[in-house]
């Protein structure tokens, strides 16, 4: 289907089902139950899942295929956000031109940075991208204040021109982002027994774009272009010796992944029309690196899994506090209960980053292929055991 082989089609369909049914899947617990805090099916969080999914897919096209580790990808996300918000300020509240502009601008930006940075490879490339991103971040905070509004962040105001729309709605408030009249924040709630499912217009827009982005990334992975990028990763010198100039390929990959980041930034601004410089900081770039590695760099589904995993636990883990822990372990004797809570305490709530850091280190040390490799190993182990049983019985049969 769509020019994909069976395996990829199945993968795409699985992702499609998962994203489109996410409001159900992420809301497994009834609203009033004690487990309701593990529900992730509210619009804000679901939007973040898919937006960071897109960001990570894009990053994976660069890092997973070519092996070039960029530590400055958040800059493109920031640029995308800024251009989208400017579109909302100047043109109209429709998200389509905003997203288009954010993709184009971040693509151009990536072309510029990539052209310079890709003259070097390895650690130097990482540091060059890091330097460019920090430069953009510092500029956004200081000199570019007229464009970025500095520390406050770029926001919509009532006296923005909005040529094709209205500056303010009839009741004097700022208009909301929409897709040809469908408001991004409009949410349809469905109560089904004790469950409450929320279907948000903005989420579905993001989800559809995620599917398109995922499809595109499958096509890139399977194309001759993707093959060339993988060849660059495995041995760039050999490519050069065969007389091939790898620069256009790596540059194309860099620009594509920059455009993905810009798309994510544009979507982020479409869901919540403000943009701040802290989105461009290098630790934000580090986050997308974490997502991609944690999920599995170089695999198709890995980055999406990693983004979902990190964003889910970031939200859920930070909500658990000592009180919740005590209620969980209340079945234990008092002293033991306090001890267990004391042990777990540093890792939850505000300590979520500690958990993330440890997890990330463990993944880099033991599971370089990320969650995907972990899944594959488990699958192999299960299969291997089955095969062993089979072969064991097979050796027995002839003897009988």
């Amino acid at each position, binding site marked *: 289907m769509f020019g994909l082989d069976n395996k990829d089609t199945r993968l795409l369909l699985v992702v499609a089902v998962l994203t489109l049914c996410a409001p159900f899947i992420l809301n497994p617990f009834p609203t009033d139950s004690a487990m309701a805090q593990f529900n992730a099916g509210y619009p804000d969080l679901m939007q973040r899942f898919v937006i960071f999914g897109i960001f990570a897919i894009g990053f994976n096209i660069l890092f997973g295929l070519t*092996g070039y580790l960029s530590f400055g990808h958040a800059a493109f996300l920031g640029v995308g956000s800024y251009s989208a918000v400017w579109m909302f300020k100047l043109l109209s509240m429709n998200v389509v031109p905003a997203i288009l502009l954010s993709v184009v601008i971040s693509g151009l930006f990536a072309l510029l940075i990539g052209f310079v940075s890709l003259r070097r490879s390895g650690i130097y490339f*990482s*540091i060059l991208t890091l330097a460019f991103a920090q430069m953009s971040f510092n500029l956004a905070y200081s000199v570019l204040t007229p464009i970025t509004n500095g520390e406050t962040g770029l926001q919509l105001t009532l006296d923005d021109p909005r040529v094709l729309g209205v500056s303010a709605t009839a009741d004097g408030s700022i208009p909301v982002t929409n897709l040809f009249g469908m408001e991004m924040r409009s949410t349809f709630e469905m109560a089904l027994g004790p469950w409450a499912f929320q279907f948000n217009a903005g989420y579905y827009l993001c989800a559809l774009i995620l599917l398109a982005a995922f499809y595109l990334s499958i096509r890139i992975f399977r194309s001759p272009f993707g093959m060339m990028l993988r060849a660059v990763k495995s041995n760039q010198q050999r490519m050069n010796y065969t007389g091939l100039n790898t620069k256009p390929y790596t540059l194309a990959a860099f620009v594509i992944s920059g455009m993905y980041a810009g798309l994510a930034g544009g979507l982020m601004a479409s869901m919540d029309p403000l943009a701040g410089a802290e989105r461009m900081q290098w630790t934000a770039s580090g986050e997308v690196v*974490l997502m991609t590695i944690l999920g599995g760099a170089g695999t198709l589904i890995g980055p999406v899994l990693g983004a979902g995993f990190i964003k889910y636990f970031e939200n859920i883990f930070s909500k658990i506090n000592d009180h919740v822990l005590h209620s969980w372990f209340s079945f234990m004797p008092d002293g033991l209960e306090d001890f267990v809570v004391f042990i777990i305490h540093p890792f939850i709530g505000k300590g979520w980053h*500690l958990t993330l850091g440890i997890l990330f280190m463990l993944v*880099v040390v033991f599971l370089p292929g990320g969650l995907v490799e972990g899944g594959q190993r488990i699958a192999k182990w299960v299969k291997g055991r089955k095969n062993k049983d089979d072969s064991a019985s097979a050796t027995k049969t002839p003897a009988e």
Partner: protein
Amino acid sequence: MDAILLQILNGLDKGSAYALIALGLTLIFGTLGVVNFAHGALFMIGAFCAVTVQRILNLSYEVVDETQKDFLGNPLKVKTSYVESWFGPEMGGAIIDWAVPIAILFAIPIMILIGFVMERGLIKHFYKREHADQILVTFGLAIVLQEVIKYFYGANPIQTASPEALSGVANVGALFGTEIFYPVWRIVYFFFSVVIIGGIFSFLQFTTFGMVVRAGMADRETVGLLGINIDRRFTIMFGIAAAVAGLAGVMYTPINSPNYHMGMDFLVLSFVVVVVGGMGSLPGAVLAGFMLGILEAFASMNEIKSILPGIDQIIIYVVAIIILLTRPRGLMGRKGVMEE
């Protein structure tokens, strides 16, 4: 003239911090070939050593003083720190006052120990893996270290004062016949870093241990073939590099109140410094550290900012990008080392 001198001074204290961190980074890279993204975290831990020492020295107990009464006529509780009660108020007060310099003694063994544990426990397993993997795992470690510090010390910057005697300003200009007032502690910091850098260089240059390490940096395999346990020496060098970063952090606390993410802030800049100086080149790292610190100070002069607004924010990165593109091995890098 005064303005120029002042900017050079301004650049020197920041430059000393850059130079010290970059020196440690280069020691690690030159010996073990590992790109250590956790080096900023070591700097931060050093700073928190100073905080810890100060807190320990300030530990106190309460005594009821019958001679002093509060307005209700009850005897007043007076806090006395243990140090003061042991050494008498004058000596004890002086010890508390000099907490930051005392922290140096405390920080050296701790940082060396942390360095050993880090190298033996984690980094050892990453020699043979790609640079990208090394960056990733040390980046993860940096996050963990900074979160641990945040857990124990909180997220707010902690003010740590320099000793009273060194906290004023001095007229540096007197040397040149003009008047330039400059904080004493920053001058102390500069000389401290010069001593440390000089110490490291003479250690490498004039001791047998240093000679072996230099030989190992040049050709690890041959030194190994000569029957020298080069790995162990490199581990020790890692500990020393960690101690250098830690000391830079200890002494930096009065200049900038330590907080848990100060390491990350310095890390990016010190990497840029290392790259500008040339990866694996110790003099390059020191030179580039001071040079970039001074350049940054000059760029933040109002006269220059009015011509090129915002230049003070990006000057270091601009220099780094130009150097990386025009002179791949940095200012003083060895030919053929990490040039691709």
